[in-house]
């Protein structure tokens, strides 16, 4: 945190940060489930615009689509 002042101008956020239950297994399990859902969504989203020609697109499979370099 780049807080140069003694009094941070964002006390609310700091309090929130301290509330994050890093060691709570329940919280971690819940977080992992949410993250799994997010990752699934992002992977599927990445795979979707395969037919859009927006310059060079690299899919998560490593294939390069629309390679414009000759």
């Amino acid at each position, binding site marked *: 945190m780049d807080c140069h002042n003694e009094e941070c101008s964002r006390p609310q*956020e700091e309090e*929130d*940060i301290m509330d*994050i*239950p*890093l060691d709570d297994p329940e*919280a*971690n*399990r*819940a*977080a*992992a*489930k*949410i*993250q*799994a*859902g*997010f*990752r*699934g*969504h*992002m*992977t*599927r*989203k990445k*795979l*979707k615009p395969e037919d859009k020609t927006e310059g060079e697109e690299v*899919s*998560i*499979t*490593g*294939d390069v689509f629309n390679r414009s370099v000759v």
Partner: protein
Amino acid sequence: MAPKKDAKAPAKKAEPAPAPAPAPAPEPAPAPAAPAVDLSAIKVEFSADQIEDYREAFGLFDRVGDNKVAYNQIADIMRALGQNPTNKEVTKLLGNPSADDMASKRVEFEGFLPMLQAIINSPNKAGFEDYVEGLRVFDKEGNGTVMGAELRIVLSTLGEKMTEAEIDALMTGQEDENGCVNYEAFVKHIMSV
């Protein structure tokens, strides 16, 4: 080591077997992580059409051309096929491989199918309510929103930590002008793809 007792007299008192039968397959180092899954015990119940779809997706990920994919691609193929496995679930299905194995070992399509079946059969699958409930924990004011900044921190420090790039990609366009995220709308958006 079986101490030689009276071999002639049948044991009157129950003598516990000195040594159990030698295990046919010696266990590798005791894994504190989840025990490996017996993939051969999984009954694959996909229709022929489904198998063809899966085979096509699988093929897209094969960059080597050996009809196999690397261990570290399995999670993404499953995601591409509509599943949301945790990395831990996939690691367990792969038999808790080392990082090197994840990058170098490959599996063929037939080996992949029972893994996919296991994920599809998983009883822990999260639905809309689960995600909303999970996010509601961070709804400090109980007004249906969470601070985008707080959500970012949670995603990067808890569970299966996400990278900043992943989080940015996820959160793009989700925060309102106050930096808040309406999490029900967020989850609907997530589940739409």
